[in-house]
């Protein structure tokens, strides 16, 4: 188990480093002439050169990367071109806001998705299964911004039961914040539910067909016990890994949702930065997003290793 941990963390660090390279390349190298892409094709060459010098983008790529990465490691992500504020400060607050939204969505979708998948598996081939599988699939396929728009229309404007801005007034209590966050969270839930349910279903179906389930039934155990002690334990283990990868889709969904609901999270920040071609802010935000994802998958892998006796107590026959 110890070796596994070390290996896994080592891999995560390597991936993290590669991530930083990718982000840097996308942000600093691809635009070519950074100042030109900010100022546009009609600007005079002298102005462009001056801006490049000011931003430091006239130096070689390697030097710029070294500069940037050393800053990142120290926690300094540079300064936003457009807003003239330290990037880390801007990301910090946005990250906290997004985290609240994401957490609410997660708390809702994980139990729902697992429950849906397990129920679908238990009634495999019958109406409930078709409804959950096809329904979940169809609903997830629709982009979250479409749901967001529809949700605002239905709940916010026509029915007028929920607020359409996600941001609660400052100083509001937890419950009020949840009320405001409910609509956007629901949109995220709709998009994530399908895949999660499908994975849970697949895991449960496999466990139901397994030999050890047969052993349990043939022992004379009641169905409920068989499902609880034998099927679910083994079915839900692989679902943990899936939940982690869903973090990626969750964050992707945040982008559009925050925009529609005008919520000051990392998603909206990202779009703003892109609009302004504010590369330091873009890079910093994307890097942070990547780190969050890698952390989530790392935690999931560790949890899986802990819960799976084969990995935890490795080792062969004796």
């Amino acid at each position, binding site marked *: 188990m110890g070796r596994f941990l070390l290996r896994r963390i080592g*891999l995560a660090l*390597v*991936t*993290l480093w*590669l*991530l930083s*390279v*990718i*982000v840097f390349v*996308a*942000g600093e190298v*691809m*635009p070519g002439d950074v100042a030109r*892409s900010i100022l546009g094709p009609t600007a005079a060459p002298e102005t462009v050169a001056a801006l490049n010098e000011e931003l430091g983008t006239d130096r070689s790529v390697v030097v710029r990367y070294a500069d940037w990465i050393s800053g990142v490691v120290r926690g300094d992500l540079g300064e936003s071109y457009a807003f003239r504020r330290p990037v880390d400060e801007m990301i910090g607050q946005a990250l906290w806001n997004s985290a609240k939204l994401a957490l609410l969505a997660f708390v809702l979708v994980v139990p729902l998705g697992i429950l849906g998948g397990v129920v679908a598996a238990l009634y495999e081939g019958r109406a409930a299964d078709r409804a959950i599988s*096809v329904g979940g*699939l*169809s609903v997830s*396929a*629709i*982009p*979250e*911004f*479409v749901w967001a*728009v*529809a949700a*605002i*229309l239905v709940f916010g*404007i026509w029915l007028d039961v929920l607020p*359409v801005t996600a941001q609660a007034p400052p100083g509001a209590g937890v419950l009020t914040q949840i009320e405001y966050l409910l609509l956007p969270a629901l949109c995220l839930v709709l998009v994530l539910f399908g895949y999660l349910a499908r994975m849970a279903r697949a895991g449960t179906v496999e466990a139901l067909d397994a030999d050890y389930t047969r052993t349990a039934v043939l022992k004379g155990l009641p169905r409920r016990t068989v499902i609880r002690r034998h099927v679910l334990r083994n079915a839900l283990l692989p679902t943990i890994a899936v939940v982690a990868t869903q973090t*990626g*889709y969750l*964050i*992707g969904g945040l*982008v*559009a949702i925050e*925009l*529609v609901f005008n919520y000051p999270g990392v998603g909206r920040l*990202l*779009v703003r930065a*892109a*609009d302004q*071609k504010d590369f330091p802010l*873009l*890079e910093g935000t*994307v890097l942070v*997003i*990547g780190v969050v*994802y*890698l952390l989530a*998958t790392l935690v999931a892998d560790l949890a899986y290793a802990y819960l799976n006796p084969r990995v935890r107590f490795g080792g062969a026959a004796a």
Partner: protein
Amino acid sequence: MSTVDDLAPVVVHDSGRESRRERLRVVLRSKTFLAGAVIVGVWVFCALFGPAIVPHDPYADDILGKLQPPSTEHWFGTDRLGRDVFSRVVVGARDILAVAPLAALLGTVLGTALGLVTGYFRGLTDDVIMRIVDAFLAIPVVVIGLVALTAVGPSRVTVVLVIGIVFTPIIARTVRAAVLAERDLEYVEAARLRNERAPYVLGGEILPNVLGPVLVEFTVRIGYAIFAIATLSFLGFGIQPPAPDWGLQIFENYGLLSAGDWWPTLFPALAIATLVVGVNLIADGLTRAFER
């Protein structure tokens, strides 16, 4: 007494065609597949013949007639520039149905090649490439797309390229998993014992066995591509105005929701929804067919 020790009572025609026919039969019997095919079929029709059949010119603005609710003249109403929403929705199918499959195709071709190579050779190449893939996968598609398109500037071509390249690692992962399952089977070793070289083993022996999953993956990716491109257009970084792209239409018009002008937003939204669902139903039907 027969001289042949074990006679199989089956008479065989061209077995390749038969198994393909059987699979087609299964696919066509699936209700999900059929439903999906119908929906997508409608949109393909719109994409192909849209400009010829629409009542109004999708690009013609008419500021005086702006924001009119649905009526017999304008079935879906008009948008904030007075353009007929119905015509724009119908013609909008063309853009998305041209760009999304192309992007998916690019990703599938590159991803399959990458998956084959890493899955078969393993070793250092595999480790290195898979770490890069993991790094890519750490960033959501929409986010990378955003950054990349900011850097190179959005247009139909760059969208295809960016989405295609972003999908490559995802597809490579799936193909790699399929290849890993195959390469341990003995027929691969039997090939080595025939002096077969790696390119043949990969392309001639293993690839035919992973084509099934690749096809399914391709169809699924079309759905995701539509999803991603619509989202990027919605964010302003996909297909550019004045194209009647659906995501773009929503981007241009959703601010009007609170004012009560719902139709320029709702109908493109429904269009996206139905198309993506249709594609996913097709993909689902195909998955079931190949599962057997």
